[in-house]
């Protein structure tokens, strides 16, 4: 495998200093991710470079950054897929920056909390198992894939001009719970969802869906959320389909029994 050199152009931010671009030549081999490249820079060239990372497999959502102008995850972007000469790295846009490639995501977490992202139902402590059909599951499953990486928030043009806009991630979370057949919280959530800095500012630029690394499609969630709000307004909103009535399953005859206890109780 031959290595080739790719220039990593990183937007550095040190507290109290002007932002500055810094360039690092990185020896890249096929299969190498942007995260690997950053790690190499830190170990061999500049240990002061800061960014977040954890799982390496695109599920923890730590390493969101703007890569060649597109928000995405450093860990699942292969360097040679996007450029064999130079790539630029910036912290996620639409967020304050703490240092280098580390954005402050607190505003997103706060907005997420504000839309009541949990099941609101009177049955949290019951004993008997709940039922949900695969159809009912599909109704919200896609929207629950969100890893809170912030890529959609960085891509959203409305958030760029309105920092108070709820943004794709919290709105999607709201829709995810609204559409859960176990949830009964639509009326509680609709106040903030219909609010001034909310759905009415979204005109399907679809940038959020374009950059989402997990196929969540926030833009789709928001449009369905709008439909639900409109239907609710005219009194036509329906709850997700009926709970399936189960048939007792057939016991399996190929399951062994646990061996007799061999320790005698005193």
């Amino acid at each position, binding site marked *: 495998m031959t290595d080739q050199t790719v220039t990593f152009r990183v937007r550095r931010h040190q507290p109290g200093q002007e932002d500055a671009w810094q360039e690092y030549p990185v020896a890249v081999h096929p299969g190498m991710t942007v995260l690997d490249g950053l790690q190499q820079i830190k170990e061999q060239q500049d240990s002061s470079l800061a960014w977040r990372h954890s799982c390496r497999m695109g*599920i*923890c959502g730590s390493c969101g950054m703007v890569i060649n102008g597109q928000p995405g995850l450093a860990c699942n972007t292969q360097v040679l897929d996007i450029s064999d000469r130079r790539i630029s790295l910036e912290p996620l846009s639409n967020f304050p920056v703490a240092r280098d490639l580390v954005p402050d995501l607190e505003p997103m977490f706060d907005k997420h*909390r504000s839309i009541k992202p*949990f099941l609101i139902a009177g049955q949290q402590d019951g004993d008997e198992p709940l039922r949900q059909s695969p159809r009912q599951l599909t109704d919200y499953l896609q929207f629950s894939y969100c890893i809170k990486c912030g890529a959609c928030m960085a891509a959203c043009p409305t958030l760029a001009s309105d920092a108070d806009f709820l943004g794709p991630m919290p709105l999607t979370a709201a829709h995810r719970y609204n559409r859960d057949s176990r949830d009964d919280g639509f009326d509680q959530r609709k106040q903030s969802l219909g609010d001034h800095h909310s759905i009415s500012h979204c005109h399907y630029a679809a940038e959020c869906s374009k950059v989402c690394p997990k196929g969540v499609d926030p833009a789709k969630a928001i449009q369905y959320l709008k439909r639900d709000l409109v239907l609710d307004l005219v009194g036509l909103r329906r709850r997700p389909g009926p*709970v399936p009535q*189960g048939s007792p*399953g057939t016991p399996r005859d190929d399951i062994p029994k646990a061996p007799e206890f061999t320790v005698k109780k005193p």
Partner: protein
Amino acid sequence: MAREVIHDVLILGSGLAGLRAAVEIARRVEGADIGLVSKVQLMRAHSVCAEGGTGAVLREDLGDSLDLHAWDTVKGSDFLADQDVVYRFVEQSPKEIHQLDRWGLPWSRTEDGHILQRDFGGHSYPRATMAADKTGFFEMQTLYDTLQQHGGCARYDEVFASRILVNDEGRFLGLSVIDMASGEMLTLRGRALLIATGGAGTLYGFTTYSDTVSGDGLAMAYRAGLALEDTEFIQFHPTGLIPSGILMTEGCRGEGGYLRNNQGERFMQHYAASKMELAPRDIISRAMMTEILEGRGFHQDGELDHLQLDMTHLGAERIHQRLPLIREVAMKFIGMDPVDTPVPVRPVAHYSMGGIETDIDGACTAPGIWAAGEAACVSLHGANRLGTNSTAECLVWGAICGEKIAGFLGEEPGLPDLPADLVAAEESRIFEGLLGPGGSASPFEIRHQLRDAMDQHLGVYRDGASMQQGLDKVRELKAAFKDVQVEDKSRVYNTNLVRALELENLLDLAEVAVASALAREESRGAHARTDFPDRDDDNWLKHTLVRQAGDGLDIRYKPVAITHWEPVERKY
């Protein structure tokens, strides 16, 4: 002097166990003041990487039973599990599944609306309760979201704990922490502490763990005088993706995937004919290493030798529905679609069966400290953990510890005094020691050497001579660390400093693990010694306990709770 903040209880670690405990305390104690301390942001903990499923008996009507789950677990553990603990576990686990259902977890479903389960290694019934192949992720999301409806939880995101403060009697006093965002040192006080920091997987170079899993809780507990139990038992998962080690869930085989060697043969028929690819992990990992060592692996220059995980006969629809993450990862990282190409895999460091010694309720020997999840060794997994039992353990003991801590808060009102010199010593250790001038050793270099040494000397197969070399190497690196240089002196978001502190923790844990392994002269579960190939119940049916003693180690043993089944030969 470090600023002091007082909470009722501190939870260290925001993975499954930590979040589960936080939710439990929040709903049991009205207005409980919880400090949730995590070195990553919430929702970034390694628990999100758990894939295959959570073990629980849900369908006794179809033939599953608590006894069977218990037996599978005990047999899987090579009889080193405490059996009273196992029973506590199997009884509690189904309740946790239904609780999460009521908190909104998107469990996969059967047509009639039941929660879907699939086969998993070492289980006699398909009881891996699944949410596609993102079970851990969804469990984390559900707990995180549920926590949002409870007030009173102070979040310390990206706050690195560097020391557990205890007084001379071992009573918990607080935590010394560094707020990474500001570089400020804080003293968090609390009456109770839950350690839920996970395992120490980045000890190894080829590992499934997130970069941030460095056993900080274990090492701090160890330095605070607590015992680490059974740390020689480190699980190697059979299917880590080449070259990164990213986990290919056991669910791939649970759904029917095959393992093949370079002859195209399903070699597991020679090792576990009845269970084939669904034998417990230790057995499959040994089989794979044997295949590779005997030359039946695939070889490619610049890569580790490997075998193939073949899912091509499962069909696109099954993979899309039940293994979407696996497919996504394989395609993104190695450009292979498992629907039509077998993927290269090899055994990979995956789990620490050992941890901080606790009783059946998760309480540590020091008053006021609990431990849960992978960080704890409640002795559920013994010498080898069954797949699906780890996420279940986190949920079960997260809830148990939460309940116990809630009770403790009610009956233990006092907050003992904190001797001022404890905090001052920690401050000077970090700000003058590590961040001060001088030092020449590169932490990155030491870390690489440590990981190489662990890969080489404490792998799937071990022997005395190699482990002795490993121990010497670790001690040499520990000495080198005393002269470590943290180049970046900035206070704000100094990831360099954090990496150095993590390395220090890893070095301590490496020493404990290798020393424990060297001492145990038998083969049991994940601890497979070529120089002692047989299990020795007469001498070694006991748990290892390691404490810090000055600069050395104090190794002791304690008996295994055998309450239901006497050990028998373990065959699949």
